[in-house]
Every structure is written in structure tokens, then in C-alpha cells.
């Protein structure tokens, strides 16, 4: 059985990357490549990583998310993690997983609003 693929789309000025419910290792590994590749191809300010479908975040998946956010940061973008389920947040914390200083939002909508606010602040400063 092959796990569902990652979806990558451009929404307004950010890249919206949605992870499937239970991605296998190769799908998790593809997160990094596909995100960084899309970041460099599209004119976007950052990344909203939609985890609302995700049912399990083990240490490998969490490390890949944290590393991806760090790499996006090096490229000049910001990452907002959105929609983590309560059961996943509880389990990941008990496991000992941390996602560094990555920003978070309850929903993808909130994350897109946050990204939009950051954009307006930048424009106001110009």
C-alpha cells in the first residue's frame, strides 16, 4: 500500500503544503525536497505546513518538519505549522518531540491570516 501523496499549492503569497494522515518514510522525506524546490520556483514569503490530517507524528517525521522549517528560514522564508490535532500534540509531547521555534496556528485559515499580517507589516515599512 502506497501512502497518500503530499499536496503543494501556492495560496496568496505563501506555499501551502498539506501532509497526509499517515505518511510513510519516503513521503516524509519528500516533504523536504518538494517544499524547498517549490520555495525556490515560486515567489512566496513562506510556508504554511498543514498537519490537520496527520494522525501520528513520530520522531523521524518531527525531525524532518523541524529541519524543513530551518531550511526554509535559511532561504529567507517563515514556516507556520497549522492544524495539529489534540491527540497528536499530546502524543508528540509525551514522546519528547519539539519543533524548535517554529510558529504555529490552530487552523490553516489562521496561519494564512498570520502570513498575511506579516506581509502587510513589511509593506507598511516600505
Amino acid at each position, binding site marked *: *500500500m502506497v501512502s497518500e501523496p503530499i499536496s503543494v499549492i501556492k495560496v496568496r503569497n505563501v506555499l501551502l503544503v498539506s501532509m497526509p494522515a499517515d505518511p510513510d*518514510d519516503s513521503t516524509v522525506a519528500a516533504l523536504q525536497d518538494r517544499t524547498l524546490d517549490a520555495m525556490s520556483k515560486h515567489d512566496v514569503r513562506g510556508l504554511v505546513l498543514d498537519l490537520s490530517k496527520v494522525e*501520528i507524528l513520530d*520522531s*523521524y517525521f518531527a525531525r524532518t518538519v523541524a529541519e524543513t522549517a530551518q531550511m526554509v528560514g535559511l532561504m529567507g522564508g517563515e514556516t507556520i505549522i497549522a492544524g495539529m490535532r489534540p491527540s497528536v500534540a*499530546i502524543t508528540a509531547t*509525551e514522546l*519528547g518531540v519539539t519543533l524548535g521555534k517554529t510558529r504555529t496556528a490552530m487552523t490553516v485559515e489562521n496561519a494564512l491570516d498570520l502570513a498575511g499580517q506579516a506581509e502587510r507589516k513589511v509593506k507598511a515599512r516600505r
Partner: protein
Amino acid sequence: MNEGSQGEVKIQTEADIAVARRAVRDVASKIGFGVTEIARIVTAASELGRNVHKYAGSGVMRWNALSNGTSSGLELRFEDQGPGIADVNEALREGHTTGGGLGMGLPGAKRLMDEMEIASEVGKGTTVTVRKWRRR
């Protein structure tokens, strides 16, 4: 589901870790565990399955639906014929790793489950058994 029902998943490739997770999710939900308990059990299975793949190359996960009359639960046993663990206490210490990971696999899985037993012999292999009981 029948009491004492059981099964196994061979772990030979990275993709099998996800196969093992799905099998554990199915059986845990049939036993009647709640959403968060299922997430705990599946996450522990993922860490332990990954250890088998990473350290031994291959092995097997056996699951066993438990019933002791008053409560039901799930037992998972991860068996491999890998290099074994020289110091089990050290392996259970937070942040200890010999495999280049974060060292949260064994201690993390222990926290997520109710019981854990490790039997290991250097050069022969390792068996990690974990159990979760349904709260009522």
C-alpha cells in the same frame, strides 16, 4: 474481535514501518482504545519498528490482543536478530543514541505505553515487548 486474536508484520523495509503502524491502528481501534490512546500506541510502534529497521535491518512485530477478565489491552512484541543492546539501562536513558537519531525511541515509547520489557543479548538480537491497557 475474538479474545486472544493475534498477528504479525514483517519489518524488512522502511515502508514496512508504516504497514506495522496501520496494523496496530486497526487492532487498537477494534479493541476500543480512544483516539489519543491509539495515537500513543501507534507512535510507540513506529519508534520501535524504526529501531528494528535501523539497528537490525529486519525483524518482526507481533501483536496480541489481551484480556485478563476485567480489562482488555494490546501487547506488541518487536523481535530482531540484530547486534543486541550492550547496556539496556543506558539505551533507556533520554538522548542516548548509537544510531544517529535523537535517542528518544526507547524512552519515548516507554512513556507512551503502560509496560515495557527488553530482552537483549549482544550478537543474538533484541526483543522489546510493550503493553497498553484500556482505561475504564
